[in-house]
């Protein structure tokens, strides 16, 4: 099997079975037989030797209408997110020092404890957008249930309180960034966290449950400068509490939240 590359043409096919982990560059294994094989490229393949792929959102691009238009998703996912993937792959071509990581690991390694490497921006933004698409669903909004709701009420007082805090964070974030509902690993509690540009909570080893992109490109085509309207549309119609619940259940394998009395639905 020669090295192969992914391209947007792959996106038309059904979701690929592998996750967004790294594909080893087989040339570096120094196996002559493999190296001499011709590279397999589809006709429309980019010239970039791909290491990470562009994950599709778990819904069609028009599924979030009217709260997030198809046109916006086509640009946000097809141009921005895609651009980050291509940018990252291009950077990784230059040397093999960063090869062999999963995307999660790559984000943490390139964050370099606060002194980010040039690859961090692209790596983190690929991760952030993957996470963001999955944090939304058609017919989202409403409230979480059962254990997640209990945890929110425990850490914020009430769901309304949490919602206010989240919205306030989104509106008071200066510049570009993200707003997160995070499970803090050491404090063992939920918090609302703002990050700038490409930073995300996994660099501090925390566990995000939902995220909201407040870079202007995330809402400008639909809402122009009205970030408030966008945030409300997200909270009321897009956020996927199902996914958040799945994420916190997974997190509980790593963080002891006290009485593990959370029924699995």
């Amino acid at each position, binding site marked *: 099997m020669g090295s192969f590359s992914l391209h947007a043409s792959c996106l038309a096919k059904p979701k690929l079975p592998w996750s967004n982990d790294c594909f080893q560059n087989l040339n570096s294994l120094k196996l002559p037989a493999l190296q001499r094989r011709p590279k397999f490229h589809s006709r429309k393949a980019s010239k970039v030797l791909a290491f990470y792929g562009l994950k599709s959102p778990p819904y069609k691009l028009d599924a979030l209408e009217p709260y997030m238009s198809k046109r916006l998703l086509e640009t946000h996912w097809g141009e921005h997110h895609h651009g980050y993937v291509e940018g990252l792959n291009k950077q990784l071509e230059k040397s093999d020092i960063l090869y062999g990581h999963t995307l999660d690991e790559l984000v943490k390694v390139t964050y370099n404890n606060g002194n980010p490497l040039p690859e961090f921006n692209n790596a983190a933004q690929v991760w952030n957008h993957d996470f963001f698409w999955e944090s939304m669903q058609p017919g989202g909004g409403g409230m979480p249930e059962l254990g997640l709701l209990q945890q929110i009420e425990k850490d914020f007082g009430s769901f309304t309180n949490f919602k206010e805090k989240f919205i306030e964070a989104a509106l008071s974030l*200066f*510049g570009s960034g993200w707003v997160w509902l995070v499970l803090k690993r050491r404090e063992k509690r939920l918090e609302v966290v703002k990050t700038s540009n*490409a930073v995300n909570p996994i660099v501090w080893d925390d566990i995000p449950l939902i995220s909201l992109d407040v870079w*202007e*490109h995330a809402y400008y*085509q639909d809402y*122009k*400068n009205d970030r408030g309207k966008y945030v409300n549309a997200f909270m009321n119609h897009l956020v996927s509490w199902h996914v958040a619940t799945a994420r916190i259940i997974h997190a509980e394998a790593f963080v002891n939240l006290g009485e593990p009395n959370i029924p699995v639905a």
Partner: protein
Amino acid sequence: MAFRPLLTRKTLACAAGLGSNGGIATSFRGLQTFTLPDLPYDYGALQPAISGEIMQLHHQKHHQAYVTNYNKALEQLHDAISKGDAPAVVKLQSAIKFNGGGHVNHSIFWKNLAPIQEGGGEPPKGSLGWAIDNDFGSLDALVQKMNAEGAALQGSGWVWLSVDKELKKLVVETTSNQDPLVTKGPSLVPLIGIDVWEHAYYLQYKNVRPDYLKNIWKVINWKYASEVYEKECP
């Protein structure tokens, strides 16, 4: 100096209650509020480099929001100062830096642009033209440099051509978010600032910031930049 045309309107000084203070000379400033400066050209006058829709939103919504929030922050700051509430004063600094910076930066930006009929895009002559050739080699080289830095800026911010008034040298700098240029050097005076926040170009150029940067030079007002330069380096 570069902020000359900021329209200000004095409100009543909060000294109303101090009248009975007798002879204590409190140096008290009346609270000035700021208003949105008018554009010296129509919203559509910079087309096709920058669309009328963008100019209108940028001016009437974004810049206006900075002005409104800056005034609000100043009022809160005034209260906190007069109450002696140090934590509140410190807490307000980021709002002031962001909104005040936004107002300052955009006020300069509108003057940095001019319709083609009024000289927009015409290369600088005189001392600024010489200085550019001296410090960068050519106007093209300067444009390439600024475009490269503007495109590479992550997130939101500005790319500036400035003059260091102490060293009398031209400097290309970037600032993030709405940080004014002085945060990068106290002796830097802005000549040309290009807004690379997404709101400055998204509706027209989407994510292709390099195209926006290439085109905006067609409407850059070098006359204004020369005036500012000649004042700092006569």
